[in-house]
Every structure is written in structure tokens, then in C-alpha cells.
């Protein structure tokens, strides 16, 4: 399977999940918009994955153990 096929597949899988979870809230005419919104998510993921990160590159969200009296 090519990378592009994989992305298309992910889009279809997510759309399937979306309809499985919430399909009873959607009308047929919303499907094109939902697919378009899902495609935006897939393109966004793809762009994020195009940048290499090393495992030491952390986010700005350090965990701090909590003490109420601190």
C-alpha cells in the first residue's frame, strides 16, 4: 500500500469512526462537509509528521508533583 493510499485509508477509517459514533446526528447532505473537515485533519496530521523530532524534544508541559503547602 502506498503512503497516499494509507492517508486515504485513514481518512475513510476516521470517517467511519465518526459515523459509527455520531452518525445518527448527521443528515446525508452533511457528509461532503464532514469528509472535507476530516480531510483537513488528515492534511494537518501529515504536515506535522513531515517534521522530524528527536525523543528528547519535549513539549512545554512539564509535570510537577503537587503539594498543597508549596
Amino acid at each position, binding site marked *: 500500500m502506498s503512503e497516499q493510499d494509507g492517508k486515504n485509508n485513514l481518512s475513510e477509517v476516521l470517517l467511519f469512526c465518526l459515523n459509527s459514533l455520531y452518525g445518527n446526528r448527521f443528515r446525508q447532505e452533511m457528509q461532503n462537509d464532514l469528509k472535507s473537515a476530516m480531510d483537513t485533519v488528515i492534511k*494537518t496530521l501529515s504536515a*506535522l509528521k513531515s517534521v522530524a523530532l528527536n525523543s528528547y524534544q519535549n513539549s512545554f508541559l512539564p509535570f510537577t508533583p503537587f503539594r498543597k503547602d508549596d
Partner: protein
Amino acid sequence: MSLNPVFMTIRSLGKLIKTKQISPVELTKIFLNRLQEIGPKYNAVVTICSDLALDQARQSEKEIASGQCRGPLHGIPYGAKDLLATSGGIPTTWGAACFRDRCFEYDATVIRKLREAGAIIVAKLAMIELAGGMGYRQPNASFTGAGINPWDLNRWSGGSSSGAGSAVCAGLVPFAIGSETWGSILGPANHCGVTGLRPTYGRVSRFGAMTLCWTLDKIGPLCLTADDCGLVLDAIAGFDSMDPTTSKKTFRYDPSFFRRPFRFGIIRNVADEAEGAMRKNFENALQTLSKLGTIEEVILPNLPYDEIIRMIMFAEISSAFEEFIEEGRVAQLTAPEDRYTPYTRMIIFAKDYIRALRLREVVCREIDEIFTKVDVLIGPSRPTCAPKLGEDFPSALRGNIKDTMGAIGNLAGIPAISVPSGFSAEGLPTGIQFLGRAYEENMVIAAARAYQDETEWHLCHPPGLT
């Protein structure tokens, strides 16, 4: 009183109040009257706070008469975006019909701080429902109707601080408080031809403000001038134990902050993202700025800036509104697309959100390095002028237009100010933004103030409103 206070700056009004040429009660009545008479024309107002405003105005008048001065905002009326909690039975609607009667029993810290500074709240101002986080793509996305632009009644005032932009533009209030996650202060400031300041993340407490994105939301002023923005920020900035994300770094507005020459930077190709009039007026502005400092091109690393902030927004919005979405309450929203688009963000993977946060750190470090070489980055405030009502508009959040400076500025949590830079051939305002290093609001305000000293765009007001 023969003076007309409409479209006077806070600084000018403050002097007139201090010298008793204008009384806070008279001033408040003038703006209450404008809000009632003119406000509906622009769908700018949710609630007019007449009783509270007049009580506060009488209190200010007594204090000023007895020689007590609370500072430059004492006796000045203002409006607040309707996502800031207000007590006393004044609803806080978040722009959504399902919250139209919801009241809080406390005030947002910003509201409290402005009261302590002597400012008078005259109105809660209209906004895009839930601050635009549900995926709206056209202006009619608030239960108060589409925000209408005072420069052209067939155009949108921008979002999500729609009422804040149009109210300042139409002279309904001397200043307003808005909020920005990605574009919600600079957008209305650009579209309405007013000055809007987005402070550093954590500079202003978000306690009592609707949460859209915990790591991105900022609160800031929309005013007539950069100087006024400095005066308002001075009153609302500061650490707040009720908001652990507020910074302990203090801010004091310095109106004498001066730098010559400024070192302006332009991100390579950033102006190409803007449409004709936005780009043309930006290029014109460069001629003015070249008198104030040096201008050098800046090359940024090739990173997916828009995509990083989009992913963070999708994930944080879907978490902040998880119950609202799961319970199907989005069906009660005004914009049809807001009733189903949010579901598409409910299946974001945690690892992808965390990747976006890790990339955000790269952006923060890269952009901070840029500010060792330049004082401020400049660019068009938005990619477009005010869109037409009744039509879909391009949106960086939806991915059909790029907004690199907005993405970088909000990702890095750094301050920016938008000031008017001219008009399109259709008579629509355009804006230029000054983006600065974290916690250097005095620098971005000084740059914008210097630009406004050289230009008169900020002195232009829609015809028939003076």
C-alpha cells in the same frame, strides 16, 4: 457640554474628566444612548448595562469631585466581549442561544480590574458563538446575528470579537475588551479599522473568561489608538492566583518608551499570503516605516505553523467542549456548520496533539532567536479585508488560507498589535501588525504608536457616525 466625546481617545477623555470638562455621568449617558440607538444596526450588543453603568458613573463622579483619581480609565465607559463573566444578573452568553439567560455570580478578573481602575461597563458585546471554535465558515454564527461592519453594512465586522470591533469603530464605546485564540482580536481590528492589542499569553488573567483553548486564549483591548491599548493593558495585566497561567512578570505601560531606529523584520513571502489591498497598503506602510527604522527580511525555518496551531486548537476545543458536543447541544447553535463540524475533532489522537505541542516548542525557540536580530516583525494584519455577509470566507483554522504570522504569534504566545493602514478600493479598512518578543508589549505599542504618529488612518471614522 459642547464637546463631542465620540471618537475621542481614552487619554483625551481622561484629561477632560480630570479637568471636569466632561462628567462621567454625562459621558456614560452619551455612550448608553449610542449603544441603544446605533448598536442594533451592527448587531454589536448583547446586553446594555444601563443601571450598573450609571451607578458606577455616579460613584466615579463623586470620587473625582473629591479629588480621588483611580488613573487614566477613571470614568471611561467600555464594553466587554460576552465571554467575560459578569455578576449582578447581567447574562454572559458566549454568543450562543442556549446560554442567552445564563448568569454568573462572580466577575471575571478583567471586569474586576477595570472596575477597580474606575472604568464603567456599559455593555456586553456580541461575539461569534463559542468564540468560533465550532468551525463556522460564514458570518452568521451568533444568536445576535452576523456582526455588521460600520464601514460597509454588507460586510462582516470580523470574529470572534465581532461586537468589540464594530462598537469601537462606530463610536459606541471608547474601548472594548476582546479575546484571541487565533485571530479574534487582530481580525476585527483589521476589518473595522481600529487598533487591537493581543498581549503575551499569561499577561492578562483568563479567570471568568470562557475557555476555548487553555494554552492559546488571550484577553486584550480594542481601542482607537495604540496608546489607548497601552493604558488599558496597564489596568488589566498582572498575576492572578485564580489563573495559574498568569505570569508574575509585571507590566507597566510606558508611553515614553522610545526607540530610534526600530529594527523591523519582515518574514520572507509573508505579504504574499495577503490579498490585493492588504498587500498594497502594507507595501505603502513600509515607506512610512522606513523613516522610523531599518527593515530587513527574515527567513524562518520551514515549519507547518498553521497546522501546528490548528491541531492544538482542534484537540483543546474538543476537550473544553466535550460534554457540550457529546450531549448534542451543538444542534442548538446558530451556524448550521457549527452543529456538525465539531464532531470531526472528537477523534483526534493524543499522540498527534502531543506532537503539535513538541513542535510548538521548536517554533517558540526559533521565533525568540529572530527577536535577537529585530525588534518587531511586521506584516499585514490579516490575509483579507472584511468578507461579504452571506458568503463563506476563507479561514486558516479550516485550512483554506494561510496566516503564518497569526499562527506563529499565537503559538508562541507573543504580543501583537494591529493598527489601520489604509483602505481598499471598496473603502474597506486594512491593517498592519507589529509582532514582538514575549513580554515586550511596550516595544510593539511603541512601534505602532510611532506609525500612528506618522499616519492618519486611525483618525478615519465611518461617515455619519461622528
